[in-house]
């Protein structure tokens, strides 16, 4: 049974009691506790069930490496699954629930999987669920989906908020243990900007648990030295040190993502919950420590089997004894500390089982002096117990000899240490297998490289595989100097030499115990706790030919759990090496990928959610639209009115009303989002001749010309009206979505190909509002406003004029996209709303109505005008759209010209633009495909075209459509068939794409 111990617990404040609940039961903990330490103090060792077999699982670790103690936190919309109890700070009112069981943690139906375990080896689902094929969709998949997944997904919108923070530093130190602090101090003394981050809540790391009272100098203990470091660093203006900051990934050029937990431990604080730091560091020092490895023996997953270092952590940091009778099993010296410390605080240590041959070292002698029983050359045969360890059966280290049963409630195990080299590996650092230390260590000869081509990162302390405190501190000083000089020679002076601790007996690398355990034991020996991977699964995988550790990982799911193999990887790959009779170094590790430990999706999204999800661009007249029933349509990032709904009107009604009114009276349209690029310079005409398929240099000042732009690959990318302002200035209109792209397109050619041309391009899209006044009464309306002469003589079709309307300076273009007599008024954005309101007001006597983008589209389709993005999709040429007239034959070069000379572009079978009219006057579905009529089976029919735009035309009172049809130009009058959904077909006649006013009489009045 677990309990609190007096006189110990560095991190907790026993005067502050916090209430929390787990699975509906209320408990008490102390301020400073983690959820895991508080659960342990309340004797809740069994907290979860495993993923596949639903076996009872207990708390194993005390940090982010914890594979078992995953819980659901909080309630309602704040609920979050799969949170590690070991890194969840306790607060008053915390609620947690256990996962992966039904109906309860104690009684779980899914645990039947455990009995079926022999039928569920690795890869069973690949073998099982393949036959019969038809079962997959209706039986296997629904069942598996129900069973799959860890924890429950939250269903509500996340009510919390998150943010980014961009930060730059010379030296980033990851890890606030003693080595990290020492290196940071050294680097900071050189004047460099230093940033130190620690994932936990306190400074000093493991050394405060393991060596707090060790005398590093004659006067100073480890604890004193750490206090000094923190105090000094906090006082330096070039240093920032922060806790609750986990480096989650390291990327190219010193880019490091750091996950800050701001208010997880204090949910009522307000402000963002997490902050994702996007840090750029010139040099990175990893002082990320090491993680203890479990030993692999039968029953090592039973609640009560824990890492020896974690048992120490719970004792020293939280004052929790993880059991009444604790047995220590180890292959190295470090676990002796657990026994010594527990003994010191009066916890019963049954014995230390040391797999190694008898030997001696300072720690072993101390244990002996403390009257702890040590059994060398022994091993655990298997652990007894179901929901808690009851005892262990011992044997000798090879598995022979008689079994001895020892009662205990906790097993503290240590299989050695693995340097936490994840981050080092993220950015390209390599590892090597150190035989003597039995660990993968960062290879300092093959470090990550930064933008300068020089070394980007260093590993120090336990992360470097250096387990000696004094040696680690010496190295940290050297690296601190080196890093601050950006890879150059660091200063070697003033190095402090700390007292060396006594040496240890070397580790005995052993990957499963006892060493010759049979199948029955190995089949109960867990390697990956969360994913239920056993020794036998790895052996099976090797037998079935998965020789690479990357394959074994995927076949067995070893290391694929939320802890990403922090505990299991090295044991797993060593066991694979064993099964393959290969050296460990040859098997290697799997690839380490960010994040080091899971981070919230919210932090990745940052501020980009709700109304900040993406920018919404608004025209200067936006508010008016909003107040007049605008039904919005996103066009690129713009929100444009699709139609203006009146009371009781459907969108369809509104569009028809707007079209008819514009055709009969006068309509007002906000065209402000159209791109407006001003091109100026002596070579402007020459440049535009290259950009457009048409000849622009011959355009007379005061005139407009419809122009087409192609990509170098010959396809149509944009269109719009070009107006020549004067000899060396042109105004190019682009599509709404095209303004930024076409601006960039022009800049690219100007800067990278024709940089000798004297041309400046300025994007004036947002400087001007643009308003279309269209309809038979448009001229009458405008002439009411001022004495500007807009008559056909003064301002013929396709020309422009500067003037004043109601005293406001405007430029009026006489161009038409509706087929009506139409004027586009360009005015400074600041006056856009004003002129709009004046026009609406004065226009009342002419029955003016505003119209939206849909009415615009209906009217242009009635006239057979194309829209980029409807009639084009990046594979359509101007020729396909019967726009040959806009392609100059005189020019020797324009962008796309050479491409259009390729044979495929001249293929008579190309799909070309036609009008389509259903035989019954109905509206064709959008995007529908035309098929060869002779084929009865639609699925096998050849597709010969598609509908690109389709509308109900209120003017003609029939459905009209534009489409691209194979040899369309030659097929006028032909009736072709379209294949709809659910085997429905439609028949339509190929007609001219100009449905209305083919001679342009209306626009030319």
């Amino acid at each position: 049974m677990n309990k609190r111990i007096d006189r110990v617990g560095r991190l907790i404040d026993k005067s502050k009691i916090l209430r929390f609940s787990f699975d509906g039961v209320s408990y008490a903990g102390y301020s400073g506790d983690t959820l895991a330490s508080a659960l342990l103090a309340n004797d809740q060792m069994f907290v979860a069930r495993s993923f596949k077999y639903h076996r009872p699982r207990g708390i194993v670790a005390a940090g982010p490496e914890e594979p078992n103690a995953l819980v659901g936190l909080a309630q309602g919309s704040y609920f979050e699954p799969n949170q590690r109890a070991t890194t969840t700070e306790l607060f008053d009112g915390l609620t947690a629930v256990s996962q992966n069981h039904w109906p309860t943690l104690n009684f779980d139906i899914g645990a039947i999987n455990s009995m079926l375990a022999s039928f569920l080896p690795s890869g069973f689902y690949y073998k099982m669920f393949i036959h019969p094929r038809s079962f997959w969709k209706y039986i296997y998949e629904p069942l598996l989906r129900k069973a799959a997944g860890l924890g429950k997904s939250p269903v509500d919108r996340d009510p919390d908020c998150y943010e980014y923070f961009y930060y730059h530093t010379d030296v980033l130190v990851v890890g606030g243990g003693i080595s990290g602090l020492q290196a940071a101090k050294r680097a900071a003394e050189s004047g460099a900007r230093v940033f130190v981050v620690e994932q936990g809540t306190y400074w000093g790391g493991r050394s405060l648990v393991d060596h707090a009272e060790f005398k590093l100098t004659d006067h100073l203990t480890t604890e004193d030295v750490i206090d000094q470091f923190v105090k000094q660093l906090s006082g330096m203006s070039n240093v920032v040190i922060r806790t609750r900051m986990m480096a989650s990934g390291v990327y190219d050029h010193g880019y490091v993502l750091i996950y800050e937990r701001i208010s997880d431990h204090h949910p009522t604080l307000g402000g963002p919950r997490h902050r994702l730091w996007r840090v750029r560091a010139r040099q990175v020092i990893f002082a990320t420590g090491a993680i203890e490895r479990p030993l692999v023996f039968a029953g090592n997953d039973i609640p009560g089997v824990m890492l020896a270092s974690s048992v120490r952590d719970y004792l020293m940091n939280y004052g929790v004894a993880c059991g009444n009778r604790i047995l220590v099993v180890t292959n190295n010296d470090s676990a002796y500390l657990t026994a010594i410390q527990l003994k010191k605080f009066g916890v019963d240590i049954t014995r230390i089982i040391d797999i190694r041959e008898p030997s001696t070292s300072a720690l072993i002698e101390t244990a002996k002096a403390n009257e702890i029983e040590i059994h060398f050359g022994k091993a655990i045969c298997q652990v007894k117990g179901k929901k808690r360890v009851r005892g262990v059966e011992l044997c000798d280290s090879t598995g022979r000899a008689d079994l001895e049963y020892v009662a205990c409630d906790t097993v503290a195990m240590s299989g050695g240490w693995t340097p936490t080299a994840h981050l080092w590996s993220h950015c390209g650092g390599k590892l090597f297998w150190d035989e003597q230390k039995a660990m993968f260590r960062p290879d300092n000869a093959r470090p990550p490289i930064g933008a300068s081509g020089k070394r980007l990162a260093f590993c120090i302390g336990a992360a470097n595989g250096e387990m000696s405190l004094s040696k680690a501190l010496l190295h940290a000083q050297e690296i601190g100097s080196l890093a601050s000089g950006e890879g150059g020679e660091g200063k070697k002076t003033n190095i402090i030499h700390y007292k060396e601790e006594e040496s240890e007996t070397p580790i005995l690398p052993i990957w499963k115990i006892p060493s010759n355990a049979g199948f029955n034991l190995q089949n109960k020996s867990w390697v990956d706790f969360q994913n239920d991977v056993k020794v036998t699964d790895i052996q099976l995988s090797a037998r079935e030919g998965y020789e690479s550790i990357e394959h074994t990982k995927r076949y067995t799911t070893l290391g694929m759990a939320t802890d990403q193999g922090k505990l299991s990887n090295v044991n797993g790959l060593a066991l694979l090496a064993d099964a393959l009779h290969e050296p460990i170094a040859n098997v290697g590790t799997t690839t380490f990928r960010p994040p080091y430990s899971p981070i919230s999706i919210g932090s990745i999204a940052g501020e980009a959610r709700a109304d900040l999800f993406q920018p919404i661009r608004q025209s200067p007249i936006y508010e008016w639209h909003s107040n007049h029933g605008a039904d919005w349509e996103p066009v690129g990032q713009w929100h444009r009115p699709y139609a203006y709904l009146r009371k009781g009107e459907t969108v369809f009604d509104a569009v028809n009303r707007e079209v008819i009114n514009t055709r009969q009276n006068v309509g007002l349209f906000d065209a402000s989002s159209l791109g407006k690029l001003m091109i100026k310079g002596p070579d402007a005409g020459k440049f535009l001749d290259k950009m457009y398929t048409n000849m622009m240099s011959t355009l007379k000042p005061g005139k407009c010309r419809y122009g087409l732009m192609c990509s170098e690959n010959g396809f149509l990318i944009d269109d719009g009206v070009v107006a020549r302002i004067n000899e060396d200035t042109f105004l190019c209109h682009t599509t709404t979505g095209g303004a930024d792209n076409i601006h960039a397109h022009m800049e690219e050619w100007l800067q990278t190909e024709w940089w000798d041309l004297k041309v400046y391009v300025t994007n004036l899209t947002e400087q001007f509002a643009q308003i279309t006044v269209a309809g038979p009464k448009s001229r009458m309306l405008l002439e009411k406003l001022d004495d500007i002469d807009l008559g056909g003589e003064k301002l013929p079709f396709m020309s422009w004029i500067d003037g004043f309307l109601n005293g406001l300076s405007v430029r009026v273009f006489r161009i038409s996209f509706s087929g009506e007599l139409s004027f586009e008024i360009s005015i400074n954005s600041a006056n856009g709303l004003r002129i709009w309101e004046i026009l609406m007001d004065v226009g009342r006597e002419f029955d003016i109505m505003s119209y939206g983008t849909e009415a615009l589209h209906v009217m242009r389709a009635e006239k057979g005008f194309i829209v980029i993005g409807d009639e084009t999709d990046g594979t359509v040429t101007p020729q396909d759209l019967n726009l040959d007239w806009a392609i100059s034959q005189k020019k020797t070069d324009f962008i796309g010209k050479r491409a259009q000379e390729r044979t495929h572009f001249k293929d008579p079978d190309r799909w070309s633009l036609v009008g389509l009219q259903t035989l019954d006057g109905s509206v064709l579905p959008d995007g529908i495909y035309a098929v060869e009529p002779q084929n009865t089976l639609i699925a096998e029919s050849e597709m010969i075209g598609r509908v690109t735009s389709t509308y109900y035309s209120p003017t003609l009172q029939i459905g009209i459509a534009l489409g691209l049809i194979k040899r369309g130009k030659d097929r006028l009058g032909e009736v072709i068939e379209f294949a709809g959904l659910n085997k429905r077909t439609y028949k339509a006649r190929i007609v001219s794409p100009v449905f209305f006013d083919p001679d342009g009489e209306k626009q030319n009045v």
Partner: protein
Amino acid sequence: MLILYCPYCGALAEETELVYGGEAHIVRAGSESTDTEFEAYLFHRKNPKGVHFERWRHALGCGKWFHAARCTLTMEVFGTYSAQTPRPPQYICDAIKFKYPSWSWK
């Protein structure tokens, strides 16, 4: 995520301020080119594991196009330079040769 010096405005610009423009120093095949030449110009691009020359635009900055010489394997940047040059400047070539003595420009 890369960070590059813009040779035009001198800003240290991270990738989110930049737009990538593919391989640098491609010579445009004009209206007189053969189909083969035109195909090569339009579609054939190097994808080396090692030294590469690429085009970048400081789109969310000064708006200028520039070139970068970069090792695609180590991410080392040998330098950034004007886009208005048909070949990399000598000091860039020297920096590359210093690291990879057997390398040569085209």
